[in-house]
């Protein structure tokens, strides 16, 4: 079982710069062609500071964590048993090219289902920009599969 003492653990915050080239590659990968994600003039006319990051881009910002495996290392499980269960964004302000985003990361819950066969680690990420505006919160759930017991009573 994962030690429940990790609930409430706060990891070191980290800073990301939203680069135009990264948004361009992200859009190319997902097939996003809307001008607001490619053309700074179009984005400014729509009221944004600069090119607008797509709606599912915050997860990519979270990948800037200097140690992307910090959660798995802290709760001490094998990455091969970890699945991404849920990802949920709550939006407060736009994320644009040139922004400096500070991300805070915290474990908010650990629980199990099916008698411990599946454990869930729930993580909250909170992002603020250079204007000290809250831009996005992420709630992420990681699913950890327990290894199958190799020997059961009565087995040959």
């Amino acid at each position, binding site marked *: 079982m994962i030690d429940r003492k990790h609930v409430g653990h706060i990891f070191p915050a980290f800073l990301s710069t939203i680069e135009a080239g990264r948004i361009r*590659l992200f859009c190319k*990968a997902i097939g996003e062609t809307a001008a607001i994600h490619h053309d700074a003039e179009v984005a400014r006319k729509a009221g944004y500071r600069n090119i607008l990051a*797509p709606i599912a881009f915050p997860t*990519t910002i979270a990948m800037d964590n200097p140690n992307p495996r910090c959660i798995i290392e802290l709760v001490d499980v094998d990455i*091969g048993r970890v699945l991404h269960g*849920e*990802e*949920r964004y709550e939006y407060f302000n736009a994320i644009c090219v040139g922004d400096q985003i500070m991300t805070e990361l915290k474990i908010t819950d650990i629980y199990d289902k099916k008698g411990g066969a599946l454990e869930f680690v729930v993580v909250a990420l909170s992002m603020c920009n250079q204007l000290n505006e809250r831009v996005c919160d992420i709630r992420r759930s990681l699913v950890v599969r327990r290894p199958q017991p190799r020997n059961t009573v009565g087995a040959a």
Partner: protein
Amino acid sequence: MSTLNLETLKTGDALADLTLPPITRYQLALYCGGSGDHNPIHVDSDFAKSAGMKDVFAHGMLSMCFMGRLITRIVPQSRVKSFGVRFVAITWVGDEITVKAHVCAVDQEAKTLTLELSCVNQKSETTLQGQAVISLS
């Protein structure tokens, strides 16, 4: 961007599907770089096979991005209050994903509309379930 008149949408209304071309290894390589998720299981078939998988498979987040494309194709991004997904099944390289959406609730008091979304593959299996809350005001 052709945005809908949100005021006229009612519970049960289906939105136009977003149909994607088959997932290619090239697309997975682009998403590996673009997303910053460098897990080799999505791009290196030797690695994927050694981990017991039949081949490489798509990042779950790539399907969430497809869902996001459908949402912002129909509503301005500034109207989206929340967007969440549950990862249900693996999307393999070569799979053809269609994103579907319908209105599951309209709350006139809170001035919000809730979309229920799903990604389905060419076998009509659901791979991703999602929900987005859109502000009407």
